[in-house]
């Protein structure tokens, strides 16, 4: 077998960005798109400061999160390990971009030129590629060169015609490329002779990008139990610290708001109808919310015309595909329930809604690039808030729809239970984020803590208690609903657009440059940046 592997020697790299530029030439990427780039890391405090240059890009993981989440199968993996993107299939949902913990993926929706506007230069004209618009793109390890090389009996990593442009260009001989499965290859030899790390090993991506930080002999001399140092990166494209993801915006948040509320309402409505409440308009209202969410996220896809078909292509691993498929069941089931007014069918629709809600929670946990999303503690929050939001709609609209009193009281009781669960889930989640997420994520969650926890949970629970004692007032019932609904929506909006800082980068060890090696740093994770 072949496994194409990149090795970056951190002792050599000077951060000159020649590889960055060479990649931009070889792959004709748009302005601000850098499939290969070099980060500028600072570790420690004055005067004991280290500065390390770290090339990054697609790590061509053996277990690539981007591929697993892709709903269209556009992201694939070749037999030789290369992680690929089929521009003709990709729907441009950018799920892969938030799933990648190396921030390696880009999406460009409109043609961009170096000098702005419509000032396209001749070289940009010659290399223009409309197929790349609106879809995900990333480093290919210059697969066209590899394939050319293989076809012409050349050895990638040895023969320049068959070697990625960044490796060819490197003026410090810091980048090496070859077959990691061949024990005699250049890269295998480097890995045998040197101490290396892979970035974000704990995320189990099995990256095929290794960083040399010392020789094997020096590795034994280095202390390994010292704590990571405070570290600093820089802003902009070359940032090392986590930055707020820009791939999913309010429209994606809208899908979690609409989808969560709608599916929650379908479940709540079904549950209450099993208690004897009328089916009424609830299925239709629930579908309305789900539709609104899907419409919003449809607006965000780069290739919306392909999306309705291609989103169904990866049920094996993509929770986005699974959400779409269960959605495809939920809609007819909900409509039939509405038309027939059947409580039994409503129960089935509620079940579908539950699966839909679960899919939404799992969509987030599979986004490995976003610590605020991927943590398992977020699942109970997403589930409990979805249910609470659905029930909240019931409480708001119930009095308006002249829902029988007998159904509202159990609903308030159920809300009290749900909010108690939501409170427990939230506290667990916030506690996890304090240690398992960038500092900026915690700060963003702090900002939402007031309205969500004190308002949406505790205050609403108190109101529920009051209502269970004095049950003849419509106003407070609706107020509970509004508070719970708004707080849940604020949380989701914040989760997607305010707290969604990406993984950033991690220098596991500072390289040996003659002065010893030390613990590296993870800018933005509990330290200044």
């Amino acid at each position: 077998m072949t496994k194409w592997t990149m090795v970056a020697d951190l002792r050599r790299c000077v951060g000159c960005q020649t590889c960055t530029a060479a990649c931009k030439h070889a792959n004709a990427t748009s302005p601000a798109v850098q499939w290969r780039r070099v980060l500028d890391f600072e570790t420690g405090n004055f005067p004991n400061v280290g500065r390390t240059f770290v090339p990054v890009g697609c790590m061509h993981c053996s277990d690539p999160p981007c591929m697993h989440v892709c709903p269209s199968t556009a992201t694939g993996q070749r037999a030789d390990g290369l992680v690929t993107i089929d521009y003709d299939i990709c729907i441009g949902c950018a799920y892969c971009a938030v799933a990648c913990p190396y921030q390696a993926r880009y999406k460009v929706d409109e043609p961009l030129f170096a000098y702005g506007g419509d000032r396209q230069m001749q070289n940009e004209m010659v290399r223009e590629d409309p197929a790349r618009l609106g879809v995900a793109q990333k480093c290919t390890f210059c697969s066209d060169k590899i394939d050319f090389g293989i076809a012409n009996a050349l050895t990638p990593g040895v023969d320049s015609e068959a070697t990625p442009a960044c490796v060819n260009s490197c003026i410090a001989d810091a980048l090496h490329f070859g077959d990691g499965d061949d024990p005699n290859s250049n890269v295998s030899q480097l890995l045998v002779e040197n101490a290396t790390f892979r970035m974000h090993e704990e995320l189990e991506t099995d990256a095929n990008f290794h960083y040399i930080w010392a020789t094997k002999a020096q590795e034994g001399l280095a202390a390994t139990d010292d704590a990571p140092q405070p570290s600093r990166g820089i802003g902009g494209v070359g940032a090392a610290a986590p930055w707020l993801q820009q791939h999913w915006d309010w429209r994606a948040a809208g899908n979690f708001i609409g989808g969560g509320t709608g599916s929650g309402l379908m479940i709540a409505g079904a549950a209450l109808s099993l208690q004897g409440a009328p089916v009424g308009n609830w299925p239709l209202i629930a579908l309305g919310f789900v539709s609104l969410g899907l419409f919003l996220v449809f607006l965000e896809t780069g290739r919306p015309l392909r999306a309705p078909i291609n989103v169904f292509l990866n049920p094996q691993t993509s929770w986005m595909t699974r959400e779409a498929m269960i959605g495809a069941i939920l809609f007819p089931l909900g409509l039939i329930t509405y038309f027939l007014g059947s409580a039994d069918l409503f129960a089935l629709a509620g079940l579908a809604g539950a699966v839909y809600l679960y899919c939404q929670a799992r969509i987030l946990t599979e986004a490995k690039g976003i610590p605020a999303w991927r943590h398992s503690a977020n699942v109970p929050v997403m589930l409990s808030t979805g249910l609470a939001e659905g029930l909240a709609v019931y409480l708001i609209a119930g009095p308006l729809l002249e829902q029988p009193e007998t159904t509202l009281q159990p609903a308030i009781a159920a809300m009290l239970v749900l909010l108690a669960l939501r409170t427990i889930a939230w506290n667990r989640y916030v506690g996890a984020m304090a240690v398992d997420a960038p500092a900026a994520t915690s700060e963003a969650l702090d900002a939402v803590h007031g309205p969500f926890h004190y308002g949406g949970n505790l205050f609403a629970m108190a109101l529920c208690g009051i209502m269970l004692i004095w049950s003849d007032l419509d106003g407070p019932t609706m107020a509970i609903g509004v508070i719970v609904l708004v707080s849940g929506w604020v949380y989701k909006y914040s989760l997607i657009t305010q707290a969604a800082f990406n993984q950033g980068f991690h220098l596991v060890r500072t390289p040996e440059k003659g002065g010893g090696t030390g613990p590296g740093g993870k800018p933005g994770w509990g330290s200044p940046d």
Partner: protein
Amino acid sequence: MARNNAGDVKNVATYCYQCVAGPDLYNIRVENGVATEVEPNFDAAKVHPAGGRICVKAYGLVQKTYNPNRITTPMKRTNPNKGRDEDPGFVPISWDEALDIIGEKFRSVRAEGLRDEEGFPRLAASFGGGGTPTSYMGSFPAFLSAWGPIDMGFGSGQGVKCYHSEHLYGELWHRAFTVAADTPSCEFNLSFGANIDASGGVCGVSRHADARVRGMRRVQIEPHLSITGANSAEWVPIKPKTDAAFMFALINVMLHERSREDLDLFFLKHHTSSPYLVGPNGYFLRDRETKKPLVWDEMSNRAVPFDTPDIDPRLEGAVQASGYEPGADEERWDYENVDCMPSFHFLVENVREKTPTWASKICDVPEETVRRLANEFVDHAHVGETVIIDGRELPFRPVAVTLGKTVNNGWGGFDCCWARTMLACLVGALEVPGGTLGTTVRLNRPATSRQASVQPTVDGFMDYPMNPTDAEGWNDRPANRNAHQTLVPLAANSAWSQALGPTHLAWMLQSETPDEFPEAQPPDIWIVYRTNPAISFWDTGKIVDTIAKFPFTICFAYTPDETNHMADVLLPDCTDLEGLQLIRIGGTKYVEQFWDHQGFALRQPAVEATGEAKDFTWIATQFAKQADLLAEYNNAINQGAAGVRLQTDTYDFALHPEREHGVEEIWDAICRSASAEISDGADNKGLEYYKEHGFRTKPFSRLNWYLFPELVDQGLRFELPYQERLYRVGKQLGNRLHEKNIHWWDKQLAEYSPLPNCDNFPALWENALVDNFDIDISDFPFWLLTSRSMQYSWGNNVDIQLIKEVADNVAGHGGVVINAAMATKMGIENGDLLEIASPLAATRGRAVLREGIRPDTLLMVGQFDHWSTPLAKQFNLPSMNKLMPMLFDLTDATGSSADLVKASVTLIEKTA
């Protein structure tokens, strides 16, 4: 999209010499007539020190070709008023009209006389980039040669932006226009601010990366953690401009704490002037008969001429000897049995008080660090070991000291360069394998060979083409507006010397005339190519105002910029990928260009010229025609003005002097001559060969990397530690100036001492500002510095989007770098808008918080502050250039200053 392999695709071999760390070789990929990619030239991997690779700057050349902001037709100014706030009103014109305008000017100036009433050349020219523009200006040097006297003294950055003291003293002491470590075999490199990993080009970066992995220990001593500091074994954050004290303390440890036996005493005795006896008046005591300096032979116990065979020269201890001591001008003292000391004694005494404890307070570095590094230096020197290079046994001393900008220029530059060279001498590590080496010569001749430039003096030193200071020879009427021949003997008078005078003087003289000095008028014509002094010089506000007063300026213009904003005619020339030229490559060149081969490389049109852009050789020919100088121009080409002589005893490809020759015809003749030269006359392959192959080389012996063998062969010594010659020259220069009643250069004369004094240079800077601006220096608590950017330096590429994009990945390109703790103390956060003010002016930029900078230091990477150049004028980046005053008080004896100023910081606006 992925590369297009269909249609007409070709790779064109060419060279890049955008910066002084080149030239390097690369290929340009051309798809259907359009340049798309820059790639290494792996065909050159075996001959090029960095394996045929090219640095990031070259990758900007595709955009440089197609940049929509490019000027693509000749233009003329329609607004007669000039100034920053005046719209030039440039309108396109034909080449015929442009050449008519220029030709008329040329002819009228020549009719008036080549020099004005005060003797200054009427034609001036400025070229940037440390001489690299000559690799892009085709046969234009032949036009300049044909013209006659030209004032090239208007600097565009020299002095503050170059290794000025290193250039002058380096060439004097070891034919080192610049200095490098012998990186491939060096073990320990003390680097005082030498930012080799950012400014060393592809050869510097690759050699140092190899050395680092091999185990070379590089210690970076500088106020901020540069790219090079980042890749060093250790960073020592020294207070700005105190490097001399650090180095003096290193010498102190070696001379006063280490055993003499740890030093290379043989080298000191036989390869330096350490044993030369010094008379009571500070000059060498000489043998009356041979005029040679005397040394005390321990074997025969008597004073003998230094080159007496089989002697053991004494290094320390008083002796009595007879001889004579020639001083300045006609001074002469004769002695019998006078008490005198070897030069080495004065060295020992000169650093006696310069202890690590003393340096620690000045440099703000722990004394144990200074002591440890001195001991490491000695311990790594391998004194006594040898190595075989190309069959010859040479000393092996793998320790080197290298200096960076602001260390090796301006006040203190002399002290640092001397101390650096002295450190090498103490362990015998000068110009030997592993040690401290010179790279190339620019002031001595011939420029093609350091070895051939070594000519002996009676003192046993290498001769040096000082500008005369004796009463008969001194040039009391400056030949150009920076008076390099009049004021700076060390600047010599080669083609490069004008650029190495006090170039700011040329600008200063336009608004003030020092006592007893001729009043300088603006040049009648000023030609500008690949430089933008309105941005790159110091006190840029004043430069802009001065340029606006120049009556007729011709700018070779790529895009509008801050200098050509004041031009009368703009001319578009072919850029890197469009023009034709053959240059020399290989051998040893600046920075870290040490090759095992030498030869020639061609830059050829990979793509059609854009718009009306013309090849520079065509332009030069038209200029020559317009100035009625065609024959002189052709003859200058024949004599080698375009890089290769076309006529020697062994070959003759000379151009007919009276005829106008086409661009390809000219370069074909040059290519044939180059082939004849490189093959010793065996063949004469022409332009077609070079177009196909790109380059041609022959082996270059590594022995040529080292000057030591040449000195041994000629029986010469390094002129260290004692600077008797400079002492005399300084005295004579003082005599000449004082005879003319000129006293405004007296401070500079003090630098001509036999041994440097290691003054308090930070105080010198502060006092200069206090004296000239009547300020309280405590209002300016920070030292403001700059640092080279590999992406931008020398590249004329500030308007290339790709360069901006990738440079922004490197910290510091976004604003002003400030120590994070200091910033926090001042309430400043990343991205806040700051105003940085010097006593002269203020600039604004965003705060970049970093740990790797001293709390008393600020850093502005590169040079920005553009207000006319497209793209760059949107950067809103600060520049220290406008903050630095041009002052005599800040001008050293070589005519340089340093990129350094005191500054204040004011928070203007918090980031959103």
